C-alpha cells in the first residue's frame, strides 16, 4: 500500500514549520513519528497535498527539568520517554503507560506529542497525561497558549490543537515519590487498549493521601475517575475494593467486537483496583 502523492517539507525550526503550514493551507498534514499518519495515508484514508515533517526540529525533542514540572518536547519518541531518568523519578505513571504502547519498533518512532494530537480513545498516552494534570503548550500563527489536559481532548480524534497549530511541549507537574501503575487489558500482543487504567497514589503511613486515576477507552476521550479518586483518600489496602467500585461512574464506553459497554464497565472497576493496589507498593 502506497500513499497518494504529496509534497514534502522538512523544516528544521518551529518558525519554519508554522510558516510551511500557513503556506500549505487546508490540505497540509503535520507528521511527527508517522506511526499513525503513515498507515492512514497508506490506506488512503487521508491524502494531504503537503506533509510537514517535524522530525528535523531538534528543539522539540527531549525532557527538561522545569522546576516544579517536567517539560517534555512533543517530538520525544516513546522509547526516550520510557528510558528518561527524570520521567522515572517525577512522572513514573507516564513511563508505565507509554511502555505498553504498541511494540519496540513503533516506540522508537512514535512520539508523545503525536499520540496526544492523534487522540485515539484507545490510545494509552492520554489517560496518564490527564491524570497527572499536565498542561499542553500549543503554538500557532497567533503565538503560544497553554491548555490544561482537562480541556485538551475534545472528542474522538479531536483536540484543542487547531489547523495551522502545533503541539510543542507537555508540562507534567512533578509527582515525586508517588507510586504508579498502568493496567492495560488487551486480547493479543502489541495492540490498543480494550480498557486501560492509569493510577498514581501518594501513600502516607500505609494509607492513601492523594490519588489520581485516568481511564483509557471508557468514552470518546480519556477520562478521570473522579469518584474513585475521592473515595480512595484515607483508604488502606482493605478499603480498595469498595473505593474502586465506582470506576465506571459517568463513563460512556463503546461497544465493539472486543467487548460491549457493560463488559468495559466491569473491566474498569477490576483494572482500577489492580492499578491502585500495584501503585501502592
Amino acid at each position, binding site marked *: *500500500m*502506497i*500513499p*497518494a*502523492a*504529496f*509534497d*514534502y517539507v*522538512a523544516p528544521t525550526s518551529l518558525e519554519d514549520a508554522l510558516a510551511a503550514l500557513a503556506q500549505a493551507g487546508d490540505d497540509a498534514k503535520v507528521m511527527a513519528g*508517522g*506511526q499513525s499518519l*503513515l*498507515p492512514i*495515508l*497508506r490506506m488512503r484514508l487521508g491524502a494531504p497535498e503537503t*506533509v510537514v*515533517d517535524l*522530525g528535523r526540529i531538534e528543539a522539540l525533542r527531549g525532557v527538561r527539568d522545569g522546576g516544579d514540572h517536567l517539560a517534555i518536547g512533543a517530538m520525544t519518541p516513546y*522509547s526516550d520517554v520510557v528510558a528518561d531518568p527524570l520521567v522515572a523519578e517525577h512522572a513514573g505513571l507516564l513511563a508505565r503507560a507509554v511502555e505498553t504502547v*504498541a*511494540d*519496540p*519498533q*513503533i516506540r*522508537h*518512532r512514535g512520539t508523545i506529542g503525536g499520540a496526544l494530537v492523534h487522540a485515539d480513545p484507545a490510545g494509552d498516552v492520554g489517560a496518564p497525561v490527564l491524570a497527572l494534570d499536565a498542561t499542553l503548550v500549543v503554538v500557532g500563527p497567533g503565538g503560544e497558549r497553554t491548555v490544561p489536559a482537562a480541556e485538551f481532548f475534545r472528542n474522538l480524534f479531536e483536540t484543542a490543537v487547531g489547523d495551522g497549530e502545533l503541539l510543542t511541549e507537555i508540562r507534567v507537574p512533578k509527582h515525586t515519590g508517588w507510586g504508579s501503575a498502568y493496567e492495560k487489558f488487551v486480547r493479543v*500482543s*502489541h495492540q490498543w487498549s480494550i480498557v486501560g487504567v492509569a493510577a498514581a497514589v501518594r501513600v502516607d503511613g500505609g494509607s492513601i493521601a492523594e490519588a489520581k486515576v485516568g481511564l483509557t477507552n471508557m468514552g470518546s476521550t480519556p477520562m478521570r475517575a473522579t469518584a474513585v479518586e475521592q473515595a480512595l483518600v484515607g483508604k488502606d489496602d482493605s478499603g480498595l475494593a469498595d473505593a474502586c467500585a465506582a470506576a465506571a461512574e459517568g463513563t460512556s464506553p463503546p461497544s465493539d467486537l472486543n467487548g460491549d459497554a457493560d463488559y468495559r464497565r466491569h473491566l474498569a472497576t477490576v483494572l482500577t483496583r489492580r492499578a491502585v493496589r500495584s501503585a501502592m507498593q
Partner: protein
Amino acid sequence: MTRITVSVDGVPYTDEVEPRTLLVHYLREVVGKVGTVVGCDTSNCGACTVHLDGRSVKSCNVLAVQADGHEVTTIEGLAVDGELHPMQAAFHENHALQCGYCTPGMIMQAVDLLTENPHPTEDEIRQGMEGNLCRCTGYHNIVKAVAAVAGSTSGEGSGAR
C-alpha cells in the same frame, strides 16, 4: 522528487525518490536489499524491521525521505566477510525458522533487543519480540535462539557487533 542520501549497510546511496516512497520499497527496489521483506504491509508483523541509526523500526511505516542523512542497517548488513552474525548463527543452530519469511525482521529485532537489554529473561525476550509475528514456528525456538546469544556473550551491548 526529493534527493536523499542514505547510508545502507555502510555504503552511502544518493537517489531521487518520490516523498511517498516507503523506506522498505526504497531498500528493496532502488538499493536492491531484497533481504528485507514486506509481510503484512500494515505495520503489524515486523517482517520489514531494519535499524535506523541503530534502533529497530518497521520500514513499511517510515518514508525514505525520513531516512535522508541517516544510517540504515538491513539483514544483509549483519554478516561480516561471509561470517554470520551470532544472531543469524543462533537462528540456524536452534532451528528458529521454518519458511523463513519472518526471519529477517526477527533477527533485526532480536539484535536490537540485546543492544538495549544484554541479559533478558525469557519473559523479556517475548515482550521485546512482541512486534514480530511468525506464522510457522510457534516462537519457541526463536526465543531459544535469542536466549542462546544472550547467554553466550558477556558484557555490554552483546547484541550489537
